[in-house]
C-alpha cells in the first residue's frame, strides 16, 4: 500500500514542504530511498529499520521504496527519520490512517536505535514555514517543543519515542503540550558583561558609542593588554535594542546550527563572534560541500570581532568584502543558491607595530620605521575603506581609577544609542537603509550637507593634517552620527572636528 506523510526541510533559512511517499509491495526484501537524498539521509535506512524493530513491531520483509518529493531539492539532515518511519508504519497499516490528520500535520525528528526521538536543528524556521502553509499540527522531538512554541497558532505534539507516536495515532494515548506558561520575551536583554566594568577609557567608550549609534565598523589600535578585547566584547551591550523581528532572525540562525535549546529557545542578546586568526575563508563566510553557516552569519545583527587583524591571512580577509557590502552571503549549489543574512558590525583590533609598543608610555618600541610601515600595510586598502572609525587604546592604570570614578552602565549608553538610531531610521525610511554607515555617495550628498563654514574647515583640516582622501566620506558619515547623538539636524563644526579625531590611521605619523 502507498502512504503519504509530510515534512519540512530547510534550504538556508527557508523551509520547503516535502512529501514522503512510501510504497510497500511484495518482492525481494529491499529498502530504498529516492528523490535526491543526501548521504545523511541514506543512513536513515538503518536507523529507521532498527528503531521500528525496537518499538516492538516486526520489520517487514517486503520491498520498501521511499520517495522524497519534490525531487529537485537536495535533502540533508536527520529530521526525515521520523516521517519515514511513520510512512512505513502507515503503509504497512500498523497505525490508523486519518485523512485530515495526515493532511494537516508535519513530522520532524531524528530516531535513535532504541526508538527515542532526538532533537533536530532549525525547528524555528521549520515552524514558521509550517504556519505559512496553514499546517495545523507538528509532531516533533520533546527537546524542540519550547522553541517551536515561539510560533503561535501551531498545535505542537512533542514525542518522546516511536512507541508513543504509534499509540497516539491509534488513539490509545493522549499527548498534551502546555504552551501557556512560556513567557516569550524577557524584556531587557541580559548580558553577562557590562561597560561599567571597563575603568577609564572614556575616549574609547565615546568612540564606541558613536560606532554603535551609526553602525560604524571600528578598528582599535593599542599595545598588548590595553583592554582592546575587553572593550570589543562589550560592544553588543550598547547596540540598539533588538525588535521582535530581529530576535527571530537571530534565533533562526542559531536554531539551524543547533545552538538553541529548551532552556534558551530565543536569542534575545546580540551575538558576539570572535573567530581565531587561523580561520579559513569557508568558516568565515560559510559554504563548503554541505553548505555551512559562516562566522559572518553567526554574527548577524551583532558584532564580528577580528582580534589581531594583521595576523589574519590576507586572502581570508578578502572574502569579507562582499558580505560587508551586501550584508548577506550567497552560497551557490548545483541547482540552487542559498543565501544567509550577515548584517554585522565589524570590530577589529591590532597592535600599533610588530613589537606592540609604538607610541606607548609603558615600554619603548623596538621597531624600525620600515617595520612599522610594513605592519600597517598588511591591512589591505579595500578593508580599510570599510572601517569608519580608528581609535587608539592606551592602557589605563585601572587600579587607581577604580574607586573614585563612576563608570556608566551599558544600559545608559544604550539609551542614547537607541535615540540616535531612531533618528536615522526615521530619516532613511524611504531608502531601505538603517544607519549612517550604510549611506552611499548619492545619499551622502543628500543627508550630510555641509554649510560653507564647515566645508572650509574640512578643507583646512585635510591640508593641515595631511589626511588621505579616502577619509572624506567616512568623516562625513561619522559626523552625521555625532550630530544625531547630539540631536542636531545639521552637521556642525564640532561634529566634524570630533569625527576627524577618529581617523588615526590616515594621519601623517603612521605614514612616515
Amino acid at each position: 500500500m502507498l502512504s503519504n506523510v509530510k515534512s519540512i526541510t530547510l534550504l538556508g533559512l527557508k523551509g520547503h514542504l516535502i512529501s514522503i511517499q512510501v510504497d510497500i509491495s511484495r518482492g525481494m526484501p529491499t529498502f530504498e530511498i529516492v528523490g535526491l537524498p543526501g548521504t545523511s539521509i541514506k543512513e536513515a535506512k538503518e536507523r529507521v529499520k532498527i528503531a521500528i524493530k525496537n518499538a516492538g513491531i516486526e520489520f517487514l520483509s517486503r520491498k520498501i521504496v521511499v520517495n522524497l518529493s519534490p525531487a529537485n531539492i537536495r535533502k540533508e539532515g536527520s529530521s526525515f527519520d521520523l516521517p519515514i518511519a511513520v510512512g512505513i508504519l502507515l503503509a504497512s497499516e500498523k497505525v490508523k490512517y486519518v485523512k485530515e490528520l495526515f493532511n494537516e500535520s508535519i513530522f520532524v525528528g531524528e530516531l535513535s536505535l532504541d526508538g527515542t526521538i532526538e532533537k533536530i536543528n532549525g525547528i524555528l524556521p521549520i515552524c514558521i514555514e509550517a504556519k505559512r502553509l496553514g499546517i495545523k499540527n507538528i509532531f516533533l522531538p520533546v527537546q524542540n517543543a519550547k522553541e517551536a512554541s515561539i510560533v503561535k497558532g501551531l498545535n505542537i505534539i512533542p514525542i518522546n519515542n516511536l512507541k508513543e507516536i504509534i499509540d497516539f495515532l491509534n488513539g490509545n494515548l493522549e499527548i498534551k503540550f502546555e504552551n501557556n506558561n512560556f513567557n516569550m520575551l524577557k524584556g531587557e536583554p541580559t548580558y553577562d558583561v557590562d561597560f561599567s566594568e571597563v575603568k577609564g577609557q572614556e575616549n574609547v567608550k565615546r568612540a564606541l558609542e558613536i560606532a554603535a549609534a551609526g553602525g560604524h565598523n571600528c578598528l582599535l589600535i593599542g599595545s598588548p593588554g590595553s583592554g582592546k578585547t575587553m572593550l570589543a566584547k562589550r560592544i553588543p551591550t550598547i547596540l540598539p535594542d533588538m525588535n521582535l523581528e530581529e530576535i527571530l532572525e537571530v534565533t533562526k540562525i542559531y536554531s539551524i546550527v543547533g545552538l538553541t535549546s529548551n532552556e534558551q529557545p530565543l536569542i534575545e542578546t546580540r551575538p558576539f563572534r570572535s573567530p581565531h586568526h587561523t580561520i579559513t575563508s569557508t568558516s568565515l563566510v560559510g559554504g563548503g560541500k554541505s553548505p555551512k553557516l559562516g562566522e559572518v552569519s553567526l554574527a548577524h545583527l551583532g558584532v564580528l570581532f577580528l582580534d589581531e587583524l594583521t595576523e589574519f591571512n590576507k586572502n581570508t580577509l578578502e572574502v569579507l568584502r562582499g558580505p560587508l557590502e551586501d550584508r548577506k552571503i550567497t552560497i551557490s549549489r548545483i541547482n540552487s543558491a542559498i543565501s544567509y543574512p550577515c548584517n554585522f558590525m565589524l570590530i577589529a583590533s591590532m597592535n600599533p607595530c610588530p613589537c606592540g609598543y609604538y607610541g606607548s608610555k609603558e615600554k619603548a618600541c623596538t621597531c624600525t620605521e620600515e617595520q612599522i610601515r610594513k605592519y600597517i600595510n598588511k591591512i589591505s586598502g579595500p578593508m580599510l575603506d570599510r572601517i569608519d572609525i580608528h581609535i587608539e587604546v592606551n592602557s589605563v592604570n585601572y587600579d587607581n581609577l577604580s574607586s573614585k570614578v563612576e563608570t556608566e552602565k551599558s544600559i545608559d549608553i544604550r539609551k542614547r544609542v537607541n535615540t540616535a538610531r531612531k533618528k536615522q531610521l526615521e530619516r532613511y525610511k524611504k531608502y531601505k537603509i538603517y544607519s549612517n554607515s550604510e549611506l552611499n555617495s548619492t545619499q551622502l550628498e543628500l543627508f550630510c550637507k555641509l554649510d560653507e563654514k564647515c566645508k572650509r574647515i574640512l578643507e583646512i583640516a585635510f591640508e593641515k593634517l595631511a589626511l588621505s582622501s579616502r577619509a572624506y566620506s567616512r568623516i562625513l558619515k561619522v559626523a552625521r552620527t555625532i550630530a544625531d547623538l547630539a540631536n542636531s539636524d545639521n552637521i556642525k563644526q564640532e561634529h566634524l572636528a570630533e569625527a576627524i579625531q577618529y581617523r588615526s590611521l590616515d594621519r601623517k605619523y603612521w605614514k612616515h
Partner: protein
Amino acid sequence: MVKQGITIVSGMAIGIDSIAHKAVLEEHGNTIAVLPCGLENIYPEENKKLFQDIINNNGLVLSEYPPKKQATSKKFLERNRIVSGLSIGVLIVEAMHRSGTSVTARYAIEQKRKVFVPPHEIGDKNGVGTNKLLKQGAIIVTKTKDIIDNFKFLKYKDMEEIKLNCEKKFKNISPIDKKQTQKDSKILINKKIEVLKNKRKLQINSKETNDLHKIYELIENTAITIDEIQEKTNINISKINNCLFILEIEGYIKKVAGGGYICN
C-alpha cells in the same frame, strides 16, 4: 617662535636646520641661513630648493666664503659661530656627546648668548650633550613662552592674539600692519574681534575659548592622552576633541602615535 615674530637663524644643514627653515617659510616668518660654503656651491645639493625658497620669501642667506668655495667639516664648525653671533639666544634641541652642536653652544657661551635646552631623559643618547649643557647652567625650557620670558624686551603673545593673525591668513581681511600691532595691539585686536565675530571660520564662543586655554595649558612636550585631559579638566570628551582639533589645525599642538598630544 615664528608666530611670536622671532627671526630664526640656522645653518641650512640636513635635519633640524632645514626643518626649522621650512617651518618658518610655512608660517611666512623671517629666517636667516648661514652657509658653510660659497653661495654658488650650495651644500648639501638637495637643499638648493630650500635656498631658493628662503630667498624668494624675503629671507636672508649668508656666507663668509667666496662664491665657489666648497664646504668642509671645519667650515661647518666655523659657520656656527656666526649663527650664534647673529642671535640673541640659542636653542639646542638635541646634542649627542661631543657633537657639532656642542660647539655652537660653546661659541654661544663665549659670545654671552643665552643657551636654551629642553630636558631629555637620562640615557637618551641624543640628550647627552644637552644634559651636560644644563649642568653648566643652560636655561631649561619646555615651551615657547619659557624662551620669550627670558628677554625683558620681548612680550609673549598669547593664543587669542595669534589666533587673530592666523585667521587673517584664511580669510583675506586686510592684513594688520606689524608696527601698528606692536604699538597699539590691544585696541586693534578688540576692533578685529568685532569684525571677525560674524565672519569667523571657526566658531568659538567665550566658553570654548576658556576650554581652549585650559586644555592648551596641559599640553607639554611629553604626550598627554585625551583621557588624562578629561580627568584633569572634567570637560566632556566631545568638547575636548573639538578643542584639540582647533589647537591642532592652528598649529599649536600635534597628535603623535599612541593617540597623545604634544605642544608644537
